[in-house]
């Protein structure tokens, strides 16, 4: 199943068939006629045909529906909001977070805690950053508000763990430095839309 098919939520334009339900017969003769008609119409064999067709589809035409879950996974939507990830700058490898604190401020369940200080270059440095995933409701506001696309929602939805702390430290969420080349640009919540250039207008300074 491709991502396109998966993302199609536009149910209104799909083909629906309205069943032609006639009224139940009233007289005994009409009832008998209905029974006779249904008996000899072969509708039951249509049902048998459907099942055997599906079996052939599944076995020989590669339309088996089963996803062997732990071994293979369905694609998830880019807008899926799973465990957060902290991204790095591709050029320098430094983390993107500038320590502005907007995510901490906007978090409606108060689960983000961060401490910052100035480093030797007078640049904001994040010294402490944790997300309490016992409280987090995965609303996506932090990713939306982040001006640097530093905190994003990743695709990691298997979050069963013995300790909540396994996910929640800055180092755990940060892209490992050796996997920097594999870092995916985030196109979900709060990301720049594909047609962003068209939407840019000059700032009206005339007033």
């Amino acid at each position: 199943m491709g991502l396109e098919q998966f993302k199609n939520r536009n149910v209104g334009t799909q083909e629906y068939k309205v069943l032609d339900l006639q009224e139940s017969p009233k007289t005994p003769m009409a009832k008998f006629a209905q029974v006779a008609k249904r008996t000899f119409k072969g509708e039951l064999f249509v049902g048998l045909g459907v099942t055997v067709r599906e079996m052939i589809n599944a076995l020989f035409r590669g339309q088996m529906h089963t996803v062997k879950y732990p071994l293979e996974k369905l694609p998830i939507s880019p807008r899926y909001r799973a465990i957060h990830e902290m991204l790095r700058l591709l050029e320098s490898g430094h983390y993107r977070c500038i320590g502005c604190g907007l995510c901490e401020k906007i978090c409606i369940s108060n689960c983000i805690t961060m401490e910052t200080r100035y480093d030797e270059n007078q640049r904001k440095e994040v010294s402490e950053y944790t997300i309490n995933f016992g409280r987090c409701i995965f609303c996506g506001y932090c990713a939306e508000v982040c001006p640097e696309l530093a905190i994003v929602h990743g695709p990691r939805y298997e979050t069963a763990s013995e300790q909540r702390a396994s996910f929640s430290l800055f180092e755990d969420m940060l892209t490992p430095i050796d996997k920097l080349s594999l870092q995916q640009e985030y196109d979900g919540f709060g990301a720049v839309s594909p047609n962003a250039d068209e939407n840019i207008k000059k700032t009206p300074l005339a007033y």
Partner: protein
Amino acid sequence: METTTLIEQLPEVTAAGVAIKAILILAIISAVAGFGTYLERKVLAFMQRRLGPTHVGPYGLLQIAADGIKLFTKEDIVPQHANALIFKVAPVITAATAFIALAGVPVFPDFTIPEFIPVLGGTFVPSIASDVNVGILFVIGMMAAGLYGPLLAGMAQANKWGIIGAARTAIQFLSYEVVTGLSLLAPIMLVGSLSLIDFNEAQSGGFTSWFIWQQPVAFVLFLIAGFAETNRTPFDLLEHEAEVISGYATEYSGMRWGMFFIGEYANMITISILAAVVFLGGYNDFGFIAGWIMILFKVAFFFFLMLWVRAAWPHVRPDQLMWLCWKVLMPIAVINVVVTGIVMMV
């Protein structure tokens, strides 16, 4: 008659041969019943575009072993207020009658054990464990007696779902048994014998001599009644989960439940063999294909048909079953018998 000479040519059937045959039937049909559960799960899964069991062994084949181990080692519970004796006897009735019924049908081809095997060498093992001259009546009667299993089980277990299951057993039994008997009556009239061997001989003239061409109505009726007899899906009122939990089997666990299951699958095989022998030419050679392969094909087809129908059709309500059996199938069966009689007279 030619048939009698044919039978006389065969070696003498000894008690040892019959005993070996009985053990063979018991062992092989039990194994096939286990394998049937695997087939059922696999076929149903494919028809719903699922995979079915895949993880235990190659293609999930060892799932049967896993299920068997589970059934044997499960705790055996007898409910507190149940009638313990009847509760324990009921599954034995189902399994035993299913296998006793198989004594009257030709199951595998006959063979003689080679001479070099000690003790049993030279023993002739017949294809039919007990060639009684009322074979078909015996088989049908034995399968009908098997319905005491669900009936007693449902009533003994002090559970309302069990009681409903038992009540449904009674109405189902009363409904389809008439149709089974009457639908088989017409081919019996044509052959003039109740022995399944005679049925087989009567259809030895090739494809066109199969009784399905002379008795299509009886074939369809027998098939419908057979589905009811084996509790297969359009008529699985006894244990339909959505309505009565598990019906008569609600309180059963472990091997007692497994015996109901083996009985059900053995009954499916019996009905398949009966339908093949009575209507589809039995184990006669078909062109260059040997007879024993043909009957395997036919039995496999009917077994597959039962799974196929289960995947495709919804099941009926009890009142619909009674309506179908008494108001539709039984009159058709009677008319079929009368018409057959008139045609034979004229």
